[in-house]
């Protein structure tokens, strides 16, 4: 652990000169800040060392292979960082008069057109700041659609048991009842189970396709027909869009509402958990309900249109994570349609190649060819007194970020691997060899896994202790030391 920034007693730099003004503050004393704020007192040199050292105890895509399933950890091109860092983007204020940010509006407008082309949807809102924010926006749009049709009995949202946790959480916080349906033996939506729960009270089915097992819902056109025949709508969770880029359009599968994860499919950096960007695309029927403002193009002039009388309103303070959208926009320009199609091809090739290599070592419960990711089960490790988590921790010693583990919930001891298109065959081959080594260690020296990782700044951490006695601030830490 690095010494805390609060533990230094140094002189801060002077970033702004003191100004005399008239020095008088005409605010009643009992409304003023009286205490010490307790902010760090630290010089810039020490501060930079502190954070540089912290960064060395962190692992990003730029450090190594990061096959974290469902997260699409692809390389984040540097040129997009440079473009996004331009003053003209950074210093534009969202409430300036429109004549001062025509460039921003044009970019958003063009990006909307490109996402429409990629997905086949009729309209886009950029306000959602993340995937889950896109989900709740989409679900509110679905409510608005049914309300408009005076079809207000639709209070249920169906999700498969393999869905991302955000799907049921979203439906619940949007005040829908959540109905979970089980997957069939192939890991796909069970059409009979779906049929049983679909009815006049169904608002929507939320689906990820390919699903979280990395499998394509082959019956998607049937599913779509069943959902629509029941008067419900079909929601697309775009977390797994990467392998469909340039190949399958979301609209052609029959989806009515979709959120995109620009920080997954379109290469914007994850930032250690955010900022992401989760634009939502809708079909023609949902257009009237989109959040305002929407961008209008009139010859070469762009403007915001707030005049949409059935709009659900706003879901963000302003227009979304603009500077993230900038990166995704230029990423799409760099690749073009051919580039995107290569992305999806290589993502699928990589995943299937690695799946074939690794299924020798751990069970592959759902055997179909996969798209961008696949899920193995670590059940077999139990014979050595080990769990999937031990395998994951041992991968760290070999220089990898471990895959997603214990998700999806329908696979026991799950390990979910998404090798993404920006990794070479050589990286995959080495990963497979290292995986084999670890599996050999599992049988010969299980403690090597059990005690892994060995070369990190800390060993395995006690989650139970963290939750039982929460120490959430430096002040908590100091008082717990007394």
């Amino acid at each position, binding site marked *: 652990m690095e010494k805390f920034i609060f533990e230094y007693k140094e002189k801060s730099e002077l970033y702004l000169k003191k100004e005399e003004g008239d020095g008088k503050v005409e605010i009643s004393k009992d409304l003023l800040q009286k205490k010490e704020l307790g902010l760090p007192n630290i010089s810039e040199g020490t501060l930079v060392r502190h954070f540089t050292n912290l960064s060395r105890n962190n692992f990003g895509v730029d450090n190594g292979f990061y096959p974290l399933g469902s997260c699409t950890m692809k390389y984040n091109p540097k040129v997009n960082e440079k473009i996004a860092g331009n003053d003209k983007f950074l210093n534009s204020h969202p409430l300036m008069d429109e004549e001062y940010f025509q460039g921003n509006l044009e970019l958003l407008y063009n990006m909307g057109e490109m996402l429409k082309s990629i997905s086949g949807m009729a309209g886009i809102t950029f306000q959602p700041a993340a995937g889950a924010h896109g989900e709740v926006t989409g679900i509110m749009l679905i409510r608005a659609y049914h309300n408009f049709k005076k079809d207000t009995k639709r209070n249920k949202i169906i999700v498969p048991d393999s869905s991302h*946790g955000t799907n049921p959480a979203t439906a619940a916080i949007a005040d829908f009842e959540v109905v979970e349906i089980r997957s069939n033996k192939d890991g796909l939506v069970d059409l009979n189970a779906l049929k049983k729960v679909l009815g006049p009270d169904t608002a929507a089915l939320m689906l990820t396709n390919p699903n979280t097992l990395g499998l394509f819902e082959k019956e998607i056109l049937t599913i779509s027909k069943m959902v629509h025949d029941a008067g419900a709508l079909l929601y697309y969770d775009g977390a797994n869009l990467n392998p469909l880029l340039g190949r399958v359009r979301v609209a052609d599968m029959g989806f009515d509402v979709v959120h995109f994860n620009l920080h997954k499919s379109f290469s914007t950096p994850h930032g250690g958990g955010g900022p992401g960007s989760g634009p939502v695309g809708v079909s023609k029927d949902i257009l009237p309900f989109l959040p305002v403002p929407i961008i209008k193009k009139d010859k070469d002039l762009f403007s915001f249109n707030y005049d949409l009388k059935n709009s659900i309103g706003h879901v963000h303070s302003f227009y979304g994570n603009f500077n993230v959208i900038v990166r995704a926009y230029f990423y799409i320009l760099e690749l073009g349609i051919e580039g995107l199609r290569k992305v999806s091809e290589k993502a699928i090739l990589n995943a299937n190649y690695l799946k074939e290599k690794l299924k020798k070592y751990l069970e592959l419960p759902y055997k179909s060819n996969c798209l961008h990711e696949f899920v193995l089960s670590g059940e077999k490790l139990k014979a050595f007194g080990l769990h999937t988590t031990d395998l994951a921790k041992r991968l760290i010693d070999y220089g990898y970020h471990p895959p997603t583990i214990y998700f999806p919930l329908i696979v026991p001891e799950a390990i979910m691997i998404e090798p993404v298109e920006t990794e070479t065959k050589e990286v995959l081959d080495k990963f497979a060899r290292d995986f084999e080594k670890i599996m050999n260690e599992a049988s010969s020296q299980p403690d090597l896994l059990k005690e892994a990782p060995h070369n990190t700044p800390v060993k395995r951490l006690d989650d139970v202790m963290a939750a039982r006695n929460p120490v959430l601030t430096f002040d908590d830490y100091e008082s717990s030391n007394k």
Partner: protein
Amino acid sequence: MDFIPDIKDDIEQLRSFLNIQDVNDLLKIDPLIYLKKFESHSILPEGLSEKEVMNEASLLQNKNRSIEYYIGGGIYHHYIPAMVDEISSRSEFYTSYTPYQPELSQGYLQAMFEYQSVISRLTSMEVSNSSLYDGATALVEAVNMAFNITRKNEIIIPSNINPHYLNVLKTYNISNRFQLNFVPTPEGIVSADDIRTRISDNTAAVVLQNPNFFGLVEDVNSISRLVKEKGALLIAVFYPLSLGLLKSPGDYDTDIAIGEGQSLGLYPSFGGPLLGIIATKKKYMRKLPGRLVGMTNDSDDNKGFVLTLQAREQHIRRKMAFSNICSNQALCALRSLLYCSAMGEEGLRNVALINYSRAHKVARLITDKKIAKLKFNLPFFNEFVLEFSSEKEMSRFRNYLKKQNVLFGLPLIKYYKEYNKDLLVSTTEMNDTDRLKDLIVQFK
């Protein structure tokens, strides 16, 4: 450019290993949807080289016109020390994911722990999460939290709360989970009497913004006392940078403090990415939305950090979770930690005081020359409302300054129909108030 690293031979090897020509030989996706419309309907251009992309970028950037602005409304143009950009550009930070594997993420986890600590001290609240999307959605989460704590559904909200936040709250209330009880604020600030007459046994929380949307300093102490007497929760909306001068939410017994963190080291950036701050009392921490970093021990009894109290969150609780948030704004939180650490105790007080003094200087310049008067004659921080004699006079003054490359104030008619000759003016350390003074002197 496509950033796919393999040479042709390697891709061929992958194909032949899998024994396929096209990937759909593997997938057998229905030809009704596979590649169906991409040929004829794609508007996507051919891919560009890096040099071409840089040209495209500068064409768009140049369509944004630079101008000095006196505009706030929740987003403020402040000076950001260079080290904030440098450190947040370290790709060990920005190319990582949520720290699910703590042994590989101690650096970010410690930084988020320090962020939570800084926010907790700044707000005088006991616990902060590690970020939400923005101020508006932070208000939604706070209201939801108040509902989950009290199981009551009435929320009292003055109309001088940032209208951008109110708009989002109204949208999220599409299923009428909450009864939103709006309190008019014709005097600019909240009147205790107006709260007293509205508060009831069904009131979950009262929302109070300080400084409010008009920049005015609220009488936070007496409003808080009243709310507490009636047994409701207090949700305070704060402007972090103002805390160098104004009382912190925790110092007037706030239960849930939320704010837009952009003023702490983030660029205006056309309104995103922003930083939603939320902080609360320890007794409510298990109702907080979003990621929380906690300290614990490793198997050798060394200190370390993990994501904790995850039983609150969607990936564990699914439909029982209190919030659906997954991705947050971690890198923005890191930037605000860097900003607060660099500025330090004295620096933050200094910048708050500069903002206060400059805004008052600008207000005096305008009112002394009788160009407009202050709409509310009450204490303010760095933002104030000017009332002109007519809408036409307001436009005339604003257009005069526009020609001098100064964008002066935000017309309030956008938010309140009756405020058609009023301008919300913000002043920060980035404004050249000496030049403005000359321009005002020359105005006829």
